[in-house]
């Protein structure tokens, strides 16, 4: 009898786990609306991109994407549940249905898009991999790092780039595998590694959080292309469209000079037909993907247009101090280029 009770509970447990897995499929938009909350996978803590502030509210460049999507879909930028994910857990969290959208400075690569069955819906930050070292080490170029010990976040594209870069330059190194940016910071500060490598934006954000940022330099070599963008599960195209065009709306808003301060005014009396369509003054664009006509307006109002978000979270006025560089509008010599809203 003892045995059959045990087997019975095993069967019950199996039923519960199986049930959770079933939720992964289906209509994400409907699921989010029914839940009344967007679940957004973010970094475990990278100042400027996604980190909780002193009062526990998540803020940052990636977080702003989550807020914009929540505002477009649910009408409230605060109806977001943030799930911190590490480099190792992020894609599993997305494909298992634990999060609806992953906005966690993740690089868009071929195999992630195809083999991992993710859909990167665009690029919100054009980045590249760099190295940070202590100034007193006397190193001025990544080419001088032969034999160095290097801290590297495991499960990332940077891990593979690092191996390729040192091999291509016929140099050797000792990797120290770490799981999160916080751990990397700690190991680097303790001197357990000579250099810390990750996306250059991540290095700048990490350095900004140091007590002595002036004693650390980011080496000039950028050894890879790292187009960072939000990702959704492959297969739910409508949901992918919603996230993609929310991001595009933020970028287009900057291009057309729509900001969080003048948006109400422009929504009623803008002469530009593109702005009228974007803000729902004319055509019903929102209905085409199952939203109302004010979706883009709410998304922009959530934390401003792309330029405003950039300036507020990681721009030159912030401690992180990143220049727009490649992330300027195409009209300013950058790569940001939102397709037309029509």
């Amino acid at each position, binding site marked *: *009898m003892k*045995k*059959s009770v045990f*087997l*019975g509970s*095993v*069967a019950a447990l*199996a*039923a519960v*786990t*199986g049930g959770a*897995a*079933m939720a*992964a*499929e289906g209509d994400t938009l409907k699921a989010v609306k029914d839940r009344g909350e967007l679940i957004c996978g973010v970094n475990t803590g990278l100042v400027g991109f996604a980190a909780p502030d002193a009062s526990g509210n998540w803020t940052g460049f990636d977080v702003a994407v989550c807020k914009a999507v929540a505002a477009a879909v649910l009408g409230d930028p605060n109806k977001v549940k943030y799930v911190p994910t590490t*480099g*190792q857990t992020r*894609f*599993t969290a997305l*494909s298992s249905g634990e999060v609806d959208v992953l906005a966690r400075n993740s690089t868009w690569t071929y*195999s*992630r898009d195809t*083999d*991992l*069955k993710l859909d990167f819906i665009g690029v919100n930050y054009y980045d590249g991999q760099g190295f940070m070292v202590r100034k007193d*080490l006397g190193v001025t170029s990544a080419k001088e*790092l*032969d*034999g*160095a*010990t290097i801290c590297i976040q*495991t*499960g990332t594209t940077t*891990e*593979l780039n*690092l*191996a*390729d870069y040192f*091999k291509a330059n016929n140099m050797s*190194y*000792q*990797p*120290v*595998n*770490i*799981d999160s940016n916080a751990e990397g910071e*700690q*190991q680097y500060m*303790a*001197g*357990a*590694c*000579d250099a810390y490598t990750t996306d250059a934006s991540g290095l700048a954000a990490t350095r900004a959080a140091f007590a002595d940022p002036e004693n650390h330099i980011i080496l000039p070599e950028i050894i890879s292309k790292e187009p960072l963008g939000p990702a959704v*599960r*492959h*297969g739910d195209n409508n949901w992918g469209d919603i996230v993609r065009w929310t991001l595009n709306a933020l970028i287009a808003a900057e291009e057309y000079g729509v900001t969080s301060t003048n948006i109400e005014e422009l929504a009623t009396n803008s002469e530009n037909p593109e702005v009228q369509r974007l803000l729902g003054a004319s055509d019903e664009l929102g209905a085409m993907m199952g939203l109302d006509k004010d979706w883009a307006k709410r998304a922009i109002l959530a934390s401003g247009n792309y330029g405003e978000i950039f300036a507020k979270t990681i721009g030159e006025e912030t401690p992180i101090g990143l220049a727009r560089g490649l992330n300027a509008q195409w009209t300013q010599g950058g790569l940001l280029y939102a397709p037309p809203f029509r």
Partner: protein
Amino acid sequence: MVDISAQPGTSFRLSMLLYDRRYRSMTIQVIVFILVMAAGWWLVDNTIRNLQALGKDFNFGFLFQRAGYDIPSPPIPYNSDDTHLRAAIVGLLNTVIVSFLGCIAATILGIAVGVARLSNNWLFARLMTVYVEMFRNIPLLLWILIVYAIFTEVLPPPNAYRGENPAASMILFDNVALTNRYTAIPTLGLTNDPGHLDLGYRITVDWATIAFAVVLIGGWFIRKAVLNWAQRVQDATGDRPVTWWINLGIMLVPSLLLIWYFGLHLIPPELKGFNFVGGLNVQNGFVALWLALTLYTGAFIAEIVRGGILAVSKGQTEAAYALGLRPNKTMKLVILPQALRVIIPPLISQYLNLTKNSSLAIAVGYMDLRGTLGGTTLNQTGRELEAILLMMLIYLALSLLISGGMNIYNSRVKLKER
């Protein structure tokens, strides 16, 4: 069955399946079996359908793709151009190495502490009690992290060994450098190197290593033969020939000859560029994991040993004393052989625990099986199901191997009933 034929007239009715005690247990077993099978089928079916919905297939082809990532200090040659399979094997070897060394150290520590807890020295026995209770009752992960943190924060970086007046200096006659990354120890060098044996798959064994192994193992067997001969002489004449110098010579002389022939010497590590080179750099992650596993499991083994010794009745000790055996002879010849029967079975569990606990290596960046196959490979290829299932299979096989080996040993020491 016999009862049924003994009662003519009562034929089988369906309700008897539930109300007749002869059938009821069978009915319950059949129902539970069907439920379990259904649940299993449902789980598999659900997995297949969910994988299909995600557009993923189930295959192990990824194991033969280029891994692309590096592993610090691999036990066999490995670089980023090798396959995921080789990376997994490197991880498995790392798991085996830390588990094996951990089991040995934990056993030695456990026996010492277990015996010490029974010591008549009050302070010594209490100190051991404190150790056992401290390590048994705090999660292993915390011990691993704290040992690692101590290494990282307290020890100097390799840089501190640089310059005219270095902040840190090497110990043991400039042979060992403790740093916050690794412990740099000397390696053995040969002036007269006979080369190595190629086993294929870029795995090689030095001829010198083979020579030493042959000499030591051969010496061990000769020593056994000498002891047997001494026993025979003792049985025949009553006088035991003095054998210690023969045994010492058998083990020592050929080894010394080999050392002289090969020109074996130490190559101390030296600071070049960013790190110590020349010697062997033992990663702190490994040392921290090994030390924490040893201290943690050692505490459990100490309790098992203490329990085993206490299980041998006091009369045995008194009888041994009455025969004139000294305390350490009593322990070796009377108590331990009997205590081992009680100690071995729970000891097997501790070995299995240690091996499985070694997967906490991920916390300190030691690339064991969990770190390679279940970590980076899983993440880079996105083959969660395959990687985890394969990893479970490997840990299962490893554990069964250990318990199989230990069971053979157990059957040799257990009470022989005639």
